[in-house]
């Protein structure tokens, strides 16, 4: 049995099913990160003193990571636009770049974590470090998850372009919506943890 509305818009929602699905998932993600941001605010307001992020964390590395993620976001959307323009080669290049930028983000993050551990700074050391590792750790897991999906769409999953190009384009759009959300979360994490 065919899965309905993978390409055509459902009459009642006006869009294909996966798009509504990913937006519902992203709504739940907003609440997940929202709960942690709310915890951050409560912990900070209740703390007698709170360190400035820049005094413990590396702002240059975090700025580099911000640049890497926004670069990955633009290449992600360009990969989808390439499919819309039927340029499969360009799609592969842009999605490949997205994967490389994502990998770059993870490498920089691992250097950051490594530097903290070498200075014996662990989640249990202070409330600031606990919330820092919780928020960035959850975000890193999201980056990793997005990269696994993107790698599949770049590699074996790309076979679908030959058999069902419109459905494949929609898959890339859905993966892109998730990836942009991960970028969006970092846009808020960066000033909140590193600069304030």
């Amino acid at each position, binding site marked *: 049995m065919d899965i309905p509305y993978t390409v055509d818009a459902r009459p009642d929602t006006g869009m294909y099913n996966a798009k509504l699905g990913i937006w519902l998932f992203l709504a739940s993600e907003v609440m997940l990160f929202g709960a942690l941001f709310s915890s951050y605010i409560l912990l900070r307001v209740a703390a007698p003193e709170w360190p400035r992020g820049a005094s413990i964390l590396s*702002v240059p590395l975090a*700025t580099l990571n911000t640049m890497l993620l*926004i670069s990955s976001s633009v290449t992600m959307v*360009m990969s989808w*636009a390439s499919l*819309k*323009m039927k340029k499969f080669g360009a799609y592969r290049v842009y999605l490949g770049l997205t994967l490389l930028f994502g990998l770059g983000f993870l490498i920089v993050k691992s250097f950051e974590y490594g530097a903290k551990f070498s200075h014996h700074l662990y989640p249990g050391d202070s409330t600031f470090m606990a919330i820092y590792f919780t928020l960035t750790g959850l975000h890193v897991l999201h980056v990793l998850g997005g990269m696994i999906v993107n790698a599949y769409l770049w590699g074996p999953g790309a076979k679908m372009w030959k058999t069902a190009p419109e459905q494949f384009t929609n898959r890339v759009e859905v993966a892109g919506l998730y990836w*942009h959300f991960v970028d969006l979360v970092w846009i808020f994490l960066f000033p909140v943890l590193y600069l*304030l």
Partner: protein
Amino acid sequence: MSDSHTHDVSKHVRSYVLVFAALAVLTIVTVWVASFEFTVGAAVAVALIIATFKGSLVASFFMHLVSEKKAIYWLLALTAIFFVVLIFLPLGAMLDHQGTPNVP
């Protein structure tokens, strides 16, 4: 895919590049502004205003919210309401009890 559709997408490509440039510049502005000696309240306000603007650019253009279906707008409006409750309700409850002794 029609030629007009392809032309529409190629027009969007230009806006994606412009949004990327704006995001890069705003990231540098965020770091630069953080070096000013603001009070904590002012620093939080400035940083969050810039972050919100950057976030809106990503959501509007990369996530295509500028031209999305009504069902998505309703879904996001509902999410925004619950998000605000999630952020401010615990904070309000805590501030309500600030200064009162912790009696079991």
